[in-house]
């Protein structure tokens, strides 16, 4: 991997690179929306392409790099044949919250935000299984119909889907905990600014 063309990084942050191998298949090179100005990956267009090439060459299903509170994940989307590249802000202990992230202390401040509530009684799970990654993280962009979480009731796994496109502002329920009808699960910004 060639050297990233970005400003020198502060010492306290470290790149974390995780990779998950795959069985068969390949990646095509499609990625989106990553080069936020002033961010740690500001000039990262080439770096992203290099990551995708790296994943391809090594037959990886998933590749993730985290730097200064921004995480890029490249995931092979088996059905579409294009990799899903997601960017999210990661909150780590001791790190200041990035200025762009809205501070919500109550839903009343979040005018225009949409709350996704549970349509049934059951147990809330953020991922498909205990060792799988969560379906979504705060900051993720989601598309209409995308699975956000599972609410399990009487051994049946009910996938809860996003009703519209948007960005996950806040996850309001705790994984593996019971939820009742109408309980808030996610706060979504249906018109995220870029």
């Amino acid at each position, binding site marked *: 991997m060639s050297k990233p063309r970005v400003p020198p990084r502060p010492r306290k942050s470290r790149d974390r690179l995780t990779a998950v191998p795959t069985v068969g298949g390949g990646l095509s090179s499609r990625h989106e929306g990553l080069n936020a100005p002033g961010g740690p990956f500001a000039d990262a267009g080439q770096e992203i392409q290099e990551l995708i090439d790296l994943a391809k060459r090594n037959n990886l299903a998933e590749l993730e790099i985290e730097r200064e509170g921004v995480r890029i994940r490249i995931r092979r989307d088996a059905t579409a044949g294009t990799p899903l590249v997601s960017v999210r802000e990661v909150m780590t202990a001791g790190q200041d919250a990035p200025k762009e992230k809205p501070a919500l202390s109550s839903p009343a401040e979040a005018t225009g935000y949409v709350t996704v509530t549970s349509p*049934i*009684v*059951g*147990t809330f799970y953020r991922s498909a299984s205990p060792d799988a990654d969560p379906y979504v993280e705060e900051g993720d962009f989601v598309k209409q119909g995308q699975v956000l979480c599972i609410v399990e*009731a*009487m051994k049946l796994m009910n996938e809860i889907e996003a009703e519209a496109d948007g960005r996950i502002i806040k996850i309001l329920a705790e994984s593996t905990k*019971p939820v*009742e*009808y*109408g*309980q808030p699960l996610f706060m979504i910004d249906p018109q995220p600014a870029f």
Partner: protein
Amino acid sequence: MFKKILIANRGEIALRVIRACKELGIKTVAIHSEADAQSLHVTAADEHVCVGPAEDALSYRNIPNVLSAAEITGADAIHPGYGFLAENAHFAEVCESVGVTFIGPTSENIAAVGDKAKARDIMARRGVPVLPGSPGELRNETEALEAARKIGFPVIIKASAGGGGRGMRVVNKEDEVVRAFQAAQSEAKATFGNEAVYLERYFLEPRHIEVQILADVRGRAVFLGERDCSIQRRYQKLVEETPSPAVDDSLRREMGRVAVEAIKAVHYRNAGTVEFLLDKDQHFYFMEVNARIQVEHPITEMVTGIDLIKEQIRIANGLPLAFRQQDIRLSGHSFECRINAECPDKFTPCPGLVTRYHPPGGFGVRVDSAMAAQALVVPHYDSLIAKLITHGQNREEAIARMRRALDEFVIEGIKTTIPLHKRIFSDAEFQKGRVSTGFLERLLADHSG
């Protein structure tokens, strides 16, 4: 004993069950719709789970959500109360299959007595005196005519899957039979989704007498006196009393014996009520079995001293009855008035905000209610907001207590049936105990006429 019981109901009966659980040291889970989030039964329970929006089909009768609520709270039993899922054989069966105890009769019991035409058949073959009627369902107009001729007029055509006065037609003469049959069928189809009807002899002004029974897992059954529920408007009960002024000791023993016989015929378990019609000549006829705890159960508790909800919980837990028939003593007299949020002239539901609520008290007065000041009466459910129950050493004292309590009862902000109850209790015929099922309609007609 159960560790935690989920109450699949709302309002006064949910509170009633929670109270019994608390006294037994059992934890409670209240379920509620979004409309009932601030309800008293929710705050009274240890835990609560919202199970849906206001419409009861999506909340209180939402079987997946109710069972899921039991699962996430770890409840080991469900008490269904009355109405909603209480007589839903499918629900009882699903509870059984997921290992949650349904506090009530078995799903087979519910199915057996739920089909009223079939139940009559079973009872008739068992030797229980049954109202003269068609042997089972009337399949067509010809059968209806034949049955009516055999039984003798007047007759009433009733829905098999019915109740609450719907799907019924009284027929006085032979030439009315066919049209009444067709009308009853279509109303039964529209109201209950099942057009099956049967036919019975119609009595002009019988008394509605019902017998409370309890049966345990060992098949031992007892009866706990009778209740006279003759004061009804359009088949909706308004006032109940025990004992019935028309029933003496020997008739009571006979009706009780027959009631026990009836429920044993279907291997009934837990609490239930056998309904009879009593004609002017002291003949009684089986009508139906109600496979649930009933609204008016408190008056039986007042005269027997037995907590029926606790008995339901004990029986469901597999415990044998702690008393035999000879241990049951009836003492004094008790009345119940159903206080409904209804407009006095048309009896239409009258929802709204209760601005002041102060129930009566004192010796011999009991109020079962989940109402409170500043609480909202919502339009989505039945209009019952309180049950006012009195007990006295005799009928006169129980009446005096009821009149005193009705005067004390303060409910402002909505209209209620309290003024009507005051009229009933000051009526001379009522005070003499001369009441039958036509009484209330006549009282109402007199007043407006």
